[in-house]
């Protein structure tokens, strides 16, 4: 661990903290454009966070300490997750702390806490949301693991930094297994980030919501932390996707010149990815909740196919 690594790590953290809400804002802007509405400013999520942090935080009667600590746990899980995914540079001192499998574990821990906190207050909506979140989560996790295993098999390591650097440096080859894994990953990240077609992020309609139902009782700084964590999760997933499938432009250790280019490259890739997400959300309709297992089973299937194709073709 050297000074440069620590600086890169801090830069990655700051980029994640600011980039998460900006990415969420950018998706909203693109969606508004595509739907012929007047777009909100790009910084709207940041402003909302600022507003919420200054507001009073109201606790429900009978809420246990669990309810109080959940936002902090969820937020720190998401922050750690977005710090171990190589965004700007693969020289991350925190990267040995958690590999790709531990990354899935981090997301699971956050999901556990957010669901427990939602059930803690005892409202019907919270319980309903928690159950649906667990349904989506337990189906999405194996599919995500399959995607990560495929990338790990190709680069023979489960460390994210090693995967990214070996994928970025191999000679250009069209890998069918990665194409399968890419489709599977897209489906998983739509489900995990509560996006259309699994959940509608723009709605407060009770019977269809998953993510909103979990946060219904939160207010003030707790709500701000939860929302920030959600946008960090979107950022982490987007960066994981970029790292696995478009790994070019991430700086290596001791490569200062590449580090300077890494931020604009990342911003361009995220902007394109956010536009694609908005496009998907505009052209697809939300599906029935009972179709979600089918959707995620397809994602799992594609992940398994990626593994099998890698075994068969050796590519």
């Amino acid at each position, binding site marked *: 661990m050297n000074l440069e690594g620590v600086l890169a790590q801090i830069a990655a953290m700051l980029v994640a903290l600011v980039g998460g809400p900006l990415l969420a804002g950018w998706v909203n802007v693109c969606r508004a454009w595509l739907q012929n509405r007047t777009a909100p400013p790009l910084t709207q999520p940041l402003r909302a966070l600022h507003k919420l942090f200054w507001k009073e935080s109201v606790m429900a009667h009978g809420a246990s300490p669990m309810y109080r600590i959940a936002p902090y746990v969820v937020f720190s899980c998401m922050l750690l997750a977005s710090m171990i995914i190589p965004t700007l540079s693969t020289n991350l001192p925190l990267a040995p702390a958690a590999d790709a499998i531990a990354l899935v574990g981090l997301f699971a821990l956050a999901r556990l806490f957010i669901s427990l906190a939602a059930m803690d207050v005892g409202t019907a909506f919270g319980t309903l949301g928690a159950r649906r979140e667990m349904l989506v989560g337990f189906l999405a996790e194996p599919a995500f693991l399959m995607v990560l295993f495929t990338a790990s098999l190709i680069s023979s390591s489960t460390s994210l930094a090693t995967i990214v650097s070996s994928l970025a440096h191999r000679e250009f080859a*069209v890998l*069918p297994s990665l194409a*399968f894994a890419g*489709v599977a990953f897209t489906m998983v990240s739509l489900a995990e980030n509560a996006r259309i077609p699994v959940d509608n992020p723009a709605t407060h309609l009770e019977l269809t919501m998953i993510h909103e139902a979990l946060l219904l009782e939160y207010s003030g700084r707790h709500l701000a932390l939860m929302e920030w964590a959600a946008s960090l999760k979107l950022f982490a997933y987007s960066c994981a996707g970029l790292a696995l499938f478009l790994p070019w432009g991430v700086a290596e250790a001791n490569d200062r010149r590449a580090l300077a280019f890494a931020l604009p490259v990342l911003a361009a890739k995220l902007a394109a990815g956010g536009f694609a997400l908005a496009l998907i959300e505009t052209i697809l309709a939300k599906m029935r909740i009972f179709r979600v297992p*089918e959707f995620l*089973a397809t994602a799992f299937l*594609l992940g398994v196919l990626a593994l*099998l194709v890698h075994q068969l073709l*050796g590519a």
Partner: protein
Amino acid sequence: MNPLAIQAVNLFASGLLLLAFAMLAQRRIVALINLFALQGVALVGSTATVAWATGQRHLYWSAAITLVLKVLLLPWILHRLIRRLNVKWDVETLINIPTMMLVGIFLVVFAFNLALPISEFSRSIARGTLGIALACVLMSFLMMITRSKAVPQVIGFLSMENGLFFAATSATYGMPMVVELGIALDVLVGMVILGVFLFQIREQFDSLDIHHLEKLKDE
């Protein structure tokens, strides 16, 4: 051999497999026909790539025949058929779709294992894809077994032919021209006959559900 060509053939092969799964999961007939046409496109792509990489002239011809027949003509006939039969929104499968996907995965594992020792003997550029071709054939079988309506079964039959054709081009650089022409004509004629059959079935039973065919009539 050009590594890019091998990768392209592998990519087209994976596309075929993906489309086979998509067909297995598809409920609507119109989308099913479009997927079949897409499978034809992947087949044309892979055949043309093999032709270009190995310099086998006649493979260009078979790619052209595939393009005309499987991408344009057969989907057009099928579209017209379902419009006249008025069965656009067929939504029935015998087993539910996630289960079918799992069975499909097992078929893929089986086919890959089966093809591995066989492809050791082959020296063609894309011998790894033999397993994929076999998997496509098996999935089309599965689709024919699990659909209760006649039109998806016909599409399953046609996509099985796609799998066989792909196996022929990728593992052995294609069959002789006479055989290919014969098969192409057979598929076309078979399609026409099946179309007539579909009308007959509907006329007899007022439905395209093939379960009606299992009952014996004693008249």
